[in-house]
């Protein structure tokens, strides 16, 4: 231990006397490690943010939607081009999903389905209270919506089954709405009546729940989401068809498999349609797709980083050979004073390891910075990957030992008198 720290001190001294040379030697390692850390940070940020949205959307959710069959033929008479069918006027109401289809599907797969979430957008309206106003985007949702989308209630709760069945005028609002208009009195607003214009008619809704608003990259507009029973929405819009809905699979059910079954089942209704087909996507397959892509990028970057590290390691070896040649007489002196071959070997291996660890540390810091910037640009919270930091340090150490061994061994095996007489 005594000698170990003495060697570290010695290594630092010798590196300090050759600052620029040492730094240039470290560059390969810095670049290699920085690249790995940066990509790992971005990847980690990405998968963390995905698993965040997984929690809000639910990993077992399968989104079912209607897609146009041939992308290039998707033009309505007035030239409107669409991919996913949303508000296509050229399509008739009968082309869309209806409750019958959905219920049929549910009966078919009731063993696998925990809930079905259907949703109908009503419109975005404005609620006024005194001089303040807040824009509310109103959606009608089935009870399954709350299974598919985990909302956290701060007061009150879901609609009752009766309220849902009868389509009563009840509403669930967000904390952001209460903050804006009701001074944050979450408990007090329960049972209050909120008035708003919908479809040019003034309507009253009784507040039954306040959910916790969470800012995320998906909520970019300033309107607050509010939920009313699906039935109530349909009686306002007079529209009871859907372009999309979600299915929540039961625990232990393979969502991918269920998604395929649902798709096949529903496509039965569209067999004769030359315009529409049913598509599904689920979080699980999206995540695995994303992970696949991230994996490929990581592999590519790792190969480049590996080359940089190899070159860096050879640089370290080279500089160690130079250093050893320069210090031949010093090595001879040390041997004359009683240093064993093992000690000399250790001295230079430690020097190489110190170079690599300093390089690795600079690389890690650079990589974290780059990764944080990258994550910010992509819009995720930066999440450094601890395992890759630890791994990088260990790997730097390994490079130092691996590429330092040969020069160090060369120094160790020098004949003392030849080293002392070296000019």
């Amino acid at each position: 231990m005594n000698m170990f720290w003495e060697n570290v001190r010695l290594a630092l001294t010798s590196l300090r006397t050759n600052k620029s040379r040492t730094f240039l030697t470290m560059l390969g390692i810095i670049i290699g490690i920085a690249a790995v850390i940066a990509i790992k940070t971005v990847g980690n940020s990405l998968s963390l943010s995905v698993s965040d949205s997984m929690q809000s959307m639910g990993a077992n959710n399968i989104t079912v939607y209607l897609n146009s069959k041939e992308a290039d033929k998707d033009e309505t008479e007035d030239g409107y081009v669409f991919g996913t069918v949303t508000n296509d006027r050229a399509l008739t109401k009968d082309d869309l999903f209806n409750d019958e289809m959905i219920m049929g599907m549910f009966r078919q797969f009731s063993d696998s389905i925990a809930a079905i979430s259907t949703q109908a957008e009503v419109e975005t309206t404005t609620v006024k209270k005194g001089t303040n106003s807040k824009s509310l985007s109103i959606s009608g949702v089935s009870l399954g919506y709350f299974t598919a989308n985990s909302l956290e209630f701060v007061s009150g709760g879901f609609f009752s089954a009766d309220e849902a069945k009868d389509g009563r005028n009840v509403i669930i609002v967000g904390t952001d709405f209460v903050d804006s208009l009701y001074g944050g009195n979450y408990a007090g607003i329960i049972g209050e009546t909120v008035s708003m214009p919908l479809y040019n008619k003034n309507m009253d809704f009784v507040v039954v729940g306040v959910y916790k608003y969470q800012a995320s990259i998906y909520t970019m507009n300033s309107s607050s989401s509010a939920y009313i029973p699906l039935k109530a929405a349909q009686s306002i819009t007079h529209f009871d068809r859907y372009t999309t809905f979600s299915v929540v699979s039961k625990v232990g059910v393979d969502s991918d498999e269920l998604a395929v079954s649902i798709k096949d089942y529903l496509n039965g209704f569209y067999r004769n349609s030359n315009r529409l087909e049913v598509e599904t996507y689920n979080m699980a397959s999206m995540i695995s797709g994303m992970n696949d892509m991230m994996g490929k990028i990581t592999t590519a970057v790792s190969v480049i980083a590996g080359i940089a590290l190899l070159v860096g390691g050879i640089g370290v070896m080279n500089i160690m050979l130079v250093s050893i040649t320069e210090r031949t007489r010093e090595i001879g002196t040390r041997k004359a004073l009683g240093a064993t071959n093992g000690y000399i070997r250790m001295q230079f291996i430690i020097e190489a390891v110190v170079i690599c660890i300093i390089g690795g540390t600079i690389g890690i810091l650079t990589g974290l910075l780059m990764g944080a910037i990258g994550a910010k640009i992509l819009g995720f919270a930066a999440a450094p990957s601890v395992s890759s930091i630890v791994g990088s340090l260990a790997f730097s150490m390994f490079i130092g030992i691996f590429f330092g061994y040969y020069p160090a061994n060369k120094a160790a095996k020098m004949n003392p008198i030849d080293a002392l007489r070296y000019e």
Partner: protein
Amino acid sequence: MSEGANTVISLKNIIKRFYIGTPNELQILNGITLDVHEGEFVSIVGQSGSGKSTLMNLIGLLDRPTEGEYHIDGLDTASASDNDLSYIRNQQIGFVFQTYNLVPKTDALKNVELPMLYAGVSRKERTQRALELLELVDMGDRTKHLPEELSGGQKQRVAIARAMANDPAIILADEPTGALDSKTGRAVMDLFHKLNKEQGKTILLITHSNELAEETDRIITIKDGYITGERKGSGCVPTPSETVSESEVTEA
């Protein structure tokens, strides 16, 4: 001449050849037989190129003889491993070189500590002893100086302090005053006398100065790799010491 003292260095028919590519083969030492006793101060003189340093390096275990037997403190060096030799160099031998050979970028104190570091002495003990030794060679006020910040004489005194670090029985000095002016050289010689008389160190000194050689117990002359002469010296510093001066045949 043994006077009952132990033989610490015993050379028998030592031959050293250098191979500088076939068919060239240089025989530098042609069968050296020499005994050095505990507490003796021996000087080795001879022309340049006669093989003095080569002999000294063999004695110091920095090199191995081509033929012949060498016992140090009764141990046959032929059977010793590299690690054994390192250990003996560390514990029993102190080197003083003409070119000082202080480790660069390392201050006087750390230089003196080095042999103790290799011996596994604790940091505290090392520093304390190094300070004492630097005090002994009158370098107590230069402990934090780097070699490049010291004069030749100062460097040599640090080197002597370093040679003493593990309290070795033998000190080997190859022209320690060679690069110093006569006054500084005198001071270094006085130091050797002190170590020899007060601490009983066995000292082997190579010198080109006949005056300095005369001060030692025994003077050995080497010529073309043979010991050609051996005589007793005064074994003490002549008084007044000012008499040793310009006649020195030093060379750098």
